[in-house]
């Protein structure tokens, strides 16, 4: 398979980082920054907070590098780690401003993620927004991790510590909910052109 040389690189990159190689550490940082930053900002809707979370995560990684497991594929681990930090930071933030909700973070996914132009009418926007709201926070995240972050089902399973089949089910349900909406949009688009 074409994936294997990359996998091998990932494994050695992680090993180099674990043995204290700063170049490897920053290679990991740079390679994954765009994806992780986008993930954090989707979860928190807060750029400053996202930047802080990424900083905290890497700092902690560096400090306990020797004690970490050796990993074949560290990407899901980074997503999981970052997710936990973001959740904690959001809680802290809520406490600070005096409102607390114990809920899971709810990703902001807007109609803009699905529409191609601004030529859509209010009605379409409403419809998309409705469909998105019918997704649970977890369902949104799964769709996002799959289609934006390009994680495999197996990797997503590692992020949430659930099994492969649960991820497939989550995805299947999400797409079922979104199907009509997406087909509807394609339909609108065809008739628009």
């Amino acid at each position: 398979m074409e994936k294997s040389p990359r996998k091998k690189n990932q494994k050695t990159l992680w090993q180099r980082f674990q043995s204290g190689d700063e170049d490897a550490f920053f290679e990991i940082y740079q390679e994954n920054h765009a994806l992780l930053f986008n993930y954090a900002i989707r979860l928190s809707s807060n750029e400053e907070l996202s930047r802080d979370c990424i900083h905290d995560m890497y700092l902690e990684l560096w400090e306990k590098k020797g004690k970490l497991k050796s990993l074949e594929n560290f990407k899901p681990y980074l997503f999981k780690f970052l997710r936990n930090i973001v959740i904690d930071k959001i809680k802290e933030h809520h406490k600070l401003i005096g409102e607390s909700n114990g809920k899971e973070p709810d990703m902001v996914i807007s109609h803009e993620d699905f529409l191609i132009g601004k030529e859509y009418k209010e009605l379409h926007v409403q419809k998309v927004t409705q469909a998105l709201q019918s997704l649970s926070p977890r369902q949104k995240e799964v769709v996002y991790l799959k289609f934006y972050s390009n994680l495999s089902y197996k990797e997503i399973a590692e992020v949430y510590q659930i099994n492969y089949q649960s991820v497939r089910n989550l995805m299947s349900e999400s797409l079922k909910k979104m199907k009509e909406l997406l087909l509807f949009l394609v339909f609108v688009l065809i008739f628009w052109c």
Partner: protein
Amino acid sequence: MKDYRQYTLEDFLSDESFQEYVRKSSADAVAFWENWKKSNPGQLEIAEEAERVLSGINFQTYKLDEYKYQKDLHRLRTAIQPKDKFLTTRDKRENVINFKISRSALQIAASLLLLVAVSFIFWKSDLLDFGNREENLSAVEWVEKVVDKGEKVTLTMKDGSKIKLNSESKLRFPENFAPDKREVYLEGEAFFEVAKDSNRPFTIYSGNLSTTVLGTAFNVRAYSNEKEMKVALLEGKVKVTNQVNAGENMLLSPMEMASLNKEKNNLVKKEFLFEDELGWKDGLLLFKNANFEEIRLKLERWYGVSFIIQNNPKLVKGYSGRFENESLEEVLEGISFTSGFKFKMEKGNVIIN
């Protein structure tokens, strides 16, 4: 091998290999599915429907400014250096001082110390000549004054100098100035009326810019989110130094302004109009050919409010106007009337629709 001929729409949608084909992320998958479609014309319709669904999902990307990205990288690089390399005599001594403070204050002190240490590390790597300064600072106790959005504060230093801080600004200064110099650190904007003392130069460090004077009145604008830092002189003489471009400096005479562009990293001398640069300290809010974004930022900072924008107004041409000590509502009424948008006020927020 799965039997794809039994696949329903949902099966196609959640099939990873099919997703890879639609999103062209794997050459193998593309080859496989193109081939499969040819040999299974009966399933073509349903497969293509699934394709349409999947290709409709296009998440937008948030881009972090290159400048901020570099700053974050730098922050991390600095943070992972062995600690004692950066902890200087000053940090250690401050540590000791803070420990004498009562237990209840300990937590605050600890976080303050962290703040001081972090910003210090930043300075150390940013400023070339910091090494000389730090030693003399060692016994100094620092005070920090933070001014929030919507506020302005005037401070009087022990030497008689007056500093008026604009909204969203921070000044760090020693409880007592050293016998041979007066130094403060500024983030944001402030107007200085420095008491004359020819034996003790007064220096303001702000980002990459330092301004040194003996006694005079001038304005420093150095908000970290702005491209330009400016020092505008009202009276006396000042020396402005670009800390990054080693030693590049400039002497200013009254009504001259030094401007440092962060991108080009060079100092330029300009003339200025009093009310443009110093009007703020007398409560003058000024717009010159401003677009909506500038207006929003300025009002948020000036009045300490947040804007909720439901519909971004399009200003046909830039907005110009001046307001002297007027309320937010009066100002908004003026701008919205000329620029043709509507607003509401709700719980400290301005809603634009």
